[in-house]
């Protein structure tokens, strides 16, 4: 039996019936990593954790390289954090450990989560398990690829503008960005604090519910974490969508959408209708401004969040041979020049610009106002429907290097995922087909705040009636 190819709930069943032990599962997954990771390059580092984990949730997991874990090096795939060993566990890591989880290693990502292809990593790119010449998406590309390639049973990623859902779509796995405030951000190295949220990447919807049961909940160390009861998400796994109202924004099927993606998503809509869902058109008139708004809000916060990487306390410190300004300013400049990649520098400059005196009102303040309008669009739509359905990404996975020199076209690959971050609502991507080239296509659902259960229910019903989640890449 290939233990590594199983889902978490299948493995848990084996634990229960004593047909497999956590040691056996761990061993099998590690040997899978040994067999394929030299080609996929999902991991940047394996963990130092010795035990195989125990208990009902002893599932080997991949962690994005931006969640602080005690006793490990955590770098956000950036040179500037090389050698940084956080002396504490992130909120989600504590929960994983408390539940007996086994951290396999740390998954590759775009540096500081800046990107949609996992090419902006100081460790080099991760490759898509379905086609090794393609990107896995990003920024949680390593996490998505590890799950798709059976190098992890499940994984955690973080999503600021689509960084869980877009790679889930590209790699043919399930990815959920929970409601802002549902999962603790404590210990997640921040990209854009008002948008970041940690979430699961799993092989199917059931696993997504199981992993949410572990990571969701209030954390008093995170002021933006919301203290509301956490449901048992597995109770939402109901194979029935009768009467559930699904809104499809007319803006979603616009210019730039790949025809194969469009067809697959339309087919999924038909399938859901057949299963009894009520599909209606909605309008989200401000979503065409979502990408522009996002690149103002997110970069502004990032420019400030990344200011702490200055060479003074941890990570890279680059001293100057000759004093140009003052020794301290030289150190800042050289450390950041050497330690940060091009995309990080680009976003820091953008963010610094939009917050600068004289430009703040025209950019940052305006951006915040449009953000409110986008949120109101979604609030309005949710008055008439339970979920909103769109493609996850406008295309399937693109070739490594294809968009590397065209940041704007790269930014547009998050056009469908960004509104959920701006509005703070939960959003999920599930597989809904394959292109004729054999690349996975993803379907995105957005839900009302704190109603992850509705997303899981609709996706579970869809998954039970479609074969996509059972397909595996040929590695």
């Amino acid at each position, binding site marked *: 039996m290939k233990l590594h190819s199983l889902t978490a709930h299948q493995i848990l069943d084996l634990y229960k019936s004593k047909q497999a032990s956590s040691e056996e599962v761990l061993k099998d997954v590690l040997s899978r990593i040994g067999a394929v990771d030299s080609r996929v390059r999902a991991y940047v580092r394996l963990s130092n954790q010795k035990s195989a984990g125990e208990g009902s949730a002893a599932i080997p997991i991949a962690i994005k390289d931006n969640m602080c874990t005690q006793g490990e090096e955590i770098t956000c795939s950036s040179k500037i954090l090389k050698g940084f060993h956080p*002396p504490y566990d992130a909120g989600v890591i504590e929960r994983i450990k408390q539940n007996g989880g086994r951290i396999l290693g740390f998954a590759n990502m775009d540096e500081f989560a800046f990107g949609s292809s996992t090419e902006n990593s100081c460790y080099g790119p991760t490759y898509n398990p379905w086609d090794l010449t393609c990107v896995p998406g990003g920024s949680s590309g390593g996490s998505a690829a590890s799950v798709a390639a059976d190098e992890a049973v499940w994984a955690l990623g973080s999503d600021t503008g689509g960084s869980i859902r877009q790679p889930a779509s590209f790699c043919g796995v399930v990815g959920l960005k929970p409601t802002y405030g549902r999962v603790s951000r404590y210990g997640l*190295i921040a990209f854009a604090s008002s948008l970041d949220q940690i979430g699961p990447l799993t092989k199917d919807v059931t696993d997504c519910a199981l992993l949410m049961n572990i990571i969701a909940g209030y954390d008093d160390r995170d002021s933006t974490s919301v203290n509301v009861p956490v449901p048992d998400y597995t109770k939402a796994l109901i194979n029935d969508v009768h009467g559930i109202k699904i809104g499809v924004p007319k803006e979603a099927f616009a210019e730039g959408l790949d025809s194969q993606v469009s067809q697959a998503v339309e087919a999924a809509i038909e399938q859901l209708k057949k299963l009894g869902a009520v599909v209606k058109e909605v309008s989200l008139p401000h979503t065409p401004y979502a990408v522009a708004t996002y690149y103002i809000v997110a970069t502004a916060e990032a420019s400030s969040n990344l200011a702490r990487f200055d060479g*003074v306390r941890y990570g890279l410190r680059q001293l100057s041979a000759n004093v140009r300004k003052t020794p*301290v300013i030289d150190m800042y400049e050289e450390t950041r020049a050497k330690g940060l990649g091009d995309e990080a520098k680009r976003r820091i400059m953008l963010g610094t610009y939009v917050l600068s005196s004289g430009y703040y009102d025209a950019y940052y303040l305006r951006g915040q106002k449009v953000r409110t309008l986008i949120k109101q669009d979604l609030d309005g739509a949710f008055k008439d429907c339970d979920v909103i359905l769109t493609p996850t990404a406008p295309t399937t996975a693109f070739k490594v290097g294809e968009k590397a020199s065209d940041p704007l076209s790269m930014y547009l690959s998050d056009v469908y995922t960004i509104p959920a971050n701006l509005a703070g609502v939960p959003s999920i991507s599930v597989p809904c087909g394959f292109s004729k080239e054999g690349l996975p296509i993803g379907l995105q659902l957005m839900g009302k705040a704190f109603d992850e259960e509705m997303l899981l229910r609709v996706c579970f019903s869809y998954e039970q009636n479609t074969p996509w989640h059972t397909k595996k890449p040929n590695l």
Partner: protein
Amino acid sequence: MSQEFETVIGLEVHLQLSTKTKIFCGCVNVFGSAPNTNVCPVCLGLPGTLPVLNQQALLYAIKVGLALNAQINPFIKFDRKNYYYPDLPKGYQISQYDLPVAKDGFVMIKTDKNEKRIGIKRAHLEEDAGKLVHDDRGNCSLVDYNRTGTPLIEIVTEPDLRSPQEAYDYLNTLKLILQYLNVSDCDMEKGSLRCDANVSIRPIGQTALGTKTELKNMNSFRAVKTGLEYEVCRHKQVILSGGRIIQETLLWNDEKAMTIAMRSKEQAHDYRYFSDPDLVPFTINYKVIDQVRAELPELPQIKLERFIKQYGLSEYDAGVLVIDQAVAVFFEHCCQHYEQSKKVANWLNGAVLKEMNERKMGISELKLTPVNLVALIKAVENGVVSNLAGKEVLKAMLDSGKTPAQVIQDKGLVQVSDDSALMAIVEEIINQNPTVVEQIKQGKPSAAGFLVGQAMKKSGGKANPKKLSELIIRRISNA
């Protein structure tokens, strides 16, 4: 060209709040620990950590706001002030920009003519930075992050101060109010109270403000005054010689008694303020505000007026008592046991204050209870001991913690009022001072004071001076 100028000054006071823990983490908030021992991942700004507001700091800030007659904003938020400095671990300081805890207050100060209202523009919460230690031997600088995250409240005045003296008076008045609130030790030497000043001058009659300069690095209220005096003088010289003041930040050098340019307006930071997404905005419930208001102590100005009215004290006496809240409380305790309030004030402001200064102790550290002080005052008033001996008794009480009765007995200081015992001394003094005796006889009775003094000395302070005076006058007029 002779021209009269008006000085315009605004002050920014930073006050460290003496909360148990720091403003955004659980580290203890104390001064003087070994470097980098009161730190945690949060105040070190390690990646991934998040701030959580200390409610005590917010309550203290509301308290300060209310004591400064300010409005408490029902909705507040925190903002990031972005700049690079090695003592600032996150690369930004969490502060408040457009929605501070308190705004639009005032402080009344006494000028030589009358009272003056100094507007308080705002008071906001923020976190303190760490401290750089420059090591000359090692050719390097070290950073101590213990202070990082200490809660600060910044109190900003309107440009209402018209002279360095007014600035000085305002600072003293403000400090006294803050001490009464018991939210900070207000110790400038430890850096728990710091002051920056903005100053400009303009021709009298002009309404537009002149170009200002900002003064930093004053380590005492005296230095604030001297620095401002220097700067006002410099502004006048520059303008009168046809020059222009450049808007800049200057450092006051106390040793050289001059200001030194630090950075110009062009070099000024663009702090790129924006609201901190890690801290959700707070709604301050009016019930919380009412609760804090109800718990406010009686503030110095109110106490002063009450002391004058209730105890019939002079403004001076009441003022001296009120300057030290503990002394004021001690005074009122004494008055519960003794109705001669004026006498109590005299003792506290005289002999007791002198002992406090000599011993460098606060009144609560002295071995003195209100009951014992009242007993001592009564002993003097009833003639058990002389006024002079009373001061000796006080010293002994403070040394030993004994009651006045015990001290008087131990030292044998009971006042001698017995005529026969005193007469011998009187005879001796009169015989030794014939010139003075002659003056008294010629109608200068005030000269008798000298003889009383001599006789007191002779008695070792034990004689009853009133009795002595009577005996001396009777003896001379009978002669």
